[in-house]
């Protein structure tokens, strides 16, 4: 391969924060027309590096060169002007506006003061068809599916004629089929002479798509190699410093009595749209039931209905035979449901409250912590101290506000709290999202131990490797229905993906 010119180069980029060096002398060379992958675990420094490339954060040391010229980014705007187009993981879109308005926002085609809406629509449409990004320019963002939103993000970057596209964990919200579609788009962009940088921790994607890969570990570049010359095993070793296989399966456990029974459950949302459509399944003691599905398939509403945060429209939910239909959240917790929510910040914790206070919520009426409404503060304090110790939660003290904790630590707080009272049923949504590897290992270990102690677990996760690794049985949801029940031993990501997108639908085993 002839050496293509350098499109983007980082030399000795260093960024320090009070307690950690996020990037330590990172050097990177990306050639024009190359698809370059940056891999590393959470906490390796990829995110900080991205923030620097995006122009949000200035490095303490080192320089950035775009096409051989040294640049300094004072803002995201500067980075855009330099030809870097960011495709964010969580979308930077305006829900009430149309696709075209979102794409041209900030650089609108105008006649005088007025926006030339026809021109905007036309430009958007042309870009979309040129690169195979099927999307309707006049559709409103709030009406579109998550997978389509990413295309809008890419269009935004292309509208600004980005020569380098930087994608951060682009496949996190995509089904396997949508991911393949994205790869096609990226390949056609490469053919068009553009350069792609993408950040991921999924090694199979790195192997499938990239030309070159750089590995980050603890803020440093530890490996930089042409993709065809390496392997997932080698990359995994470089990423973690040890040979961990997070998809290793756990030893099985016997299942016992039925714990949770969901029968013909239907949930309509506030607008009357049916989100859960006649779902029926059960969770037994000693088993982990994993639910896989594209975001918006009804898993969130299903979980909310089970824990009591959302009213169900019809159908039955019972725990150990006891009908929960009229029990509120408190009642269901009393009955024995613990819940690790998807959003640990907005739902699972109170940032401005202390760690101790956060470790109590949901259980403040347990006899252990109060008598006749009067709090036993000693018991509350002891409980917090125990959990901080056993989960190795890194806090300066039980009074530290959880807003100051890292994502992994906060997730430990949430998991610790929910597992501490031996609730028979644990409902866990995305329990390891945005958490570093060590914490993932730990949390998985806790979940398995919980199962082994005879509890039942309902696991909802977008991380298919996690679902495959932990579940006793896998249920796939699509458009509010359960469309498949699979044996993790006998299925794989591809098959699950097909069910997730509705491409395949068959009778459930034994139904």
């Amino acid at each position: 391969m002839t050496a293509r010119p350098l499109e983007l180069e980082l030399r000795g980029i260093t960024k320090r924060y009070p307690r950690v060096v996020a990037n330590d002398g990172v050097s990177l060379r990306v050639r024009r027309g190359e698809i370059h992958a940056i891999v590393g675990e959470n906490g390796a420094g990829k995110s900080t590096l991205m923030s620097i490339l995006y122009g949000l954060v200035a490095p303490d040391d080192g320089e950035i060169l775009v096409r051989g010229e040294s640049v300094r980014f004072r803002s995201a705007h500067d980075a855009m002007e330099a030809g870097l187009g960011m495709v964010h993981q969580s979308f930077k879109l305006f829900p009430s506006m149309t696709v075209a308005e979102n794409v041209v926002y900030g650089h609108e085609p105008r006649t005088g003061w007025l926006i030339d809406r026809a021109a905007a629509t036309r430009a958007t449409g042309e870009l979309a068809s040129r690169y195979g990004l099927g999307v309707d320019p006049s559709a409103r963002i709030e009406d579109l599916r998550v997978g389509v939103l990413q295309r809008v993000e890419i269009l935004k970057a292309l509208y600004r004629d980005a020569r380098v596209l930087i994608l951060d964990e682009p496949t996190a919200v995509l089904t396997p089929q949508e991911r393949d579609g994205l790869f096609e788009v990226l390949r056609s962009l490469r053919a068009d002479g553009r350069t792609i940088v993408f950040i991921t921790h999924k090694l199979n994607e790195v192997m499938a798509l990239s030309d070159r890969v750089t590995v980050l570990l603890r803020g440093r570049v530890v490996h930089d190699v042409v993709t065809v010359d390496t392997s997932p095993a080698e990359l995994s070793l470089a990423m973690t410093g040890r040979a961990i296989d997070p998809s290793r399966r756990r030893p099985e456990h016997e299942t016992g009595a039925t714990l949770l029974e969901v029968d013909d459950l239907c949930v309509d949302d506030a607008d009357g749209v049916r989100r859960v459509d006649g779902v029926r399944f059960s969770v037994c003691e000693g088993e982990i039931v994993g639910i896989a599905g594209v975001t918006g398939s009804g898993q969130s509403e299903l979980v909310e209905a089970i824990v009591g945060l959302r009213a169900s429209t019809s159908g039955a939910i019972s725990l150990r035979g006891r009908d929960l239909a009229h029990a509120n959240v408190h009642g269901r917790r009393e009955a024995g449901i613990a819940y690790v929510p998807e959003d640990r910040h907005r739902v699972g914790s109170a940032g401005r409250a202390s760690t101790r206070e956060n470790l109590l919520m949901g259980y403040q009426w347990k006899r252990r912590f109060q008598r006749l409404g009067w709090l036993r503060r000693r018991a509350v304090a002891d409980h917090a101290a125990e959990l901080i110790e056993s989960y190795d939660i890194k806090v300066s003290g039980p009074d530290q506000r959880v807003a100051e904790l890292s994502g992994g630590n906060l997730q430990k707080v949430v998991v610790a709290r929910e597992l501490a009272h031996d609730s028979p049923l644990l409902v866990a949504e995305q329990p390891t999202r945005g958490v570093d590897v060590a914490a993932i290992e730990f949390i998985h270990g806790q979940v398995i131990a919980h199962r082994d102690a005879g509890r039942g677990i309902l696991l909802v996760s977008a991380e298919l490797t996690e679902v495959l690794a932990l579940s006793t049985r896998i249920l796939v949801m699509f458009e509010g229905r359960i469309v498949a029940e699979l044996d993790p031993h006998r299925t794989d990501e591809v098959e699950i993906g097909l069910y997730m997108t509705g491409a395949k639908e068959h009778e459930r085993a034994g139904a």
Partner: protein
Amino acid sequence: MFDQLFDAALLDSVVRASVPILLAAIGGLICERAGVFQISLEGTMLVGAFTAVSVSYVSGNAYLGVLGAIAGGMATSSLLAVGHVSRKGDPIVIGIAINLLAVGLTGFLLPQFFDLRGVFRDPAIVGLEKYEIPLLADLPVVGNALFDMTLVGYLAFVLVPVVWIMLFRTAVGLRLRGVGENPAAAHTRGVPVTTYQYTAVATSGLLAGLAGAQLALGNVVQFAENMTAGRGWIAVVAVLLGRAHPFGVLAACLLFGFAEGLGFRLQGNGFAVQATDALPWVATLLALVIARRRFIRLVDLTGRMA
């Protein structure tokens, strides 16, 4: 009695009552679109009224008074701009504090500067003149109400379609809406969020000041302690009811104006003054109840609806 009540004079008083609220509400809706929770319209209007009267009294010119009101309004709103947009303070607390400061400050300066209490009425205060639009002013019923107003009054109604065009047809408006809807996204697209929010707040100060000028130099020609009497709060509700949309807000303001105008009429016709005093407030409350499903994110900003 029906045709005694609902006649041209009623329409006239509806329009007159609506104008100050409309001006303030337009400022409020611009702030809401920019993502700033602006509840200090009441205090800003009061400051506007006071400065309008003071400057008019001292200078003998009503339009200098209007300029004074604009300056006073913008100065007042700058407290919100600095405190919330720059310093990230809580807009509800700041808004309430501004309202109370305005009452205290105007109540304090009235005796200090003019050596009297309560109501400041003086022939030296020059009020705003009303201008008739020829031909249109002769129309039956609507003529007197809509086409014989002060310049400020005309401005209020002209602003409604102008702001609509601004918001939904210009680039500036698109960017403003984006700033309010997702400031992080606007920021990454190079749109200066702080600048837009500052401008929005300054505009609301300007308009609320104008509202005060209309109140104190247009509807009547005097300053009375606390003369805004809650109109600024009604403007906040109008923004909520009108979903921060110029025509919706206009409708909400007219509703309140109608309730107030009708109230005065009913008083004249023998209804208890207390009932008619309460009428505009109860009417607004009822409108809120009826339209409750259509609230915009003001609800999120008041924060306690989860």
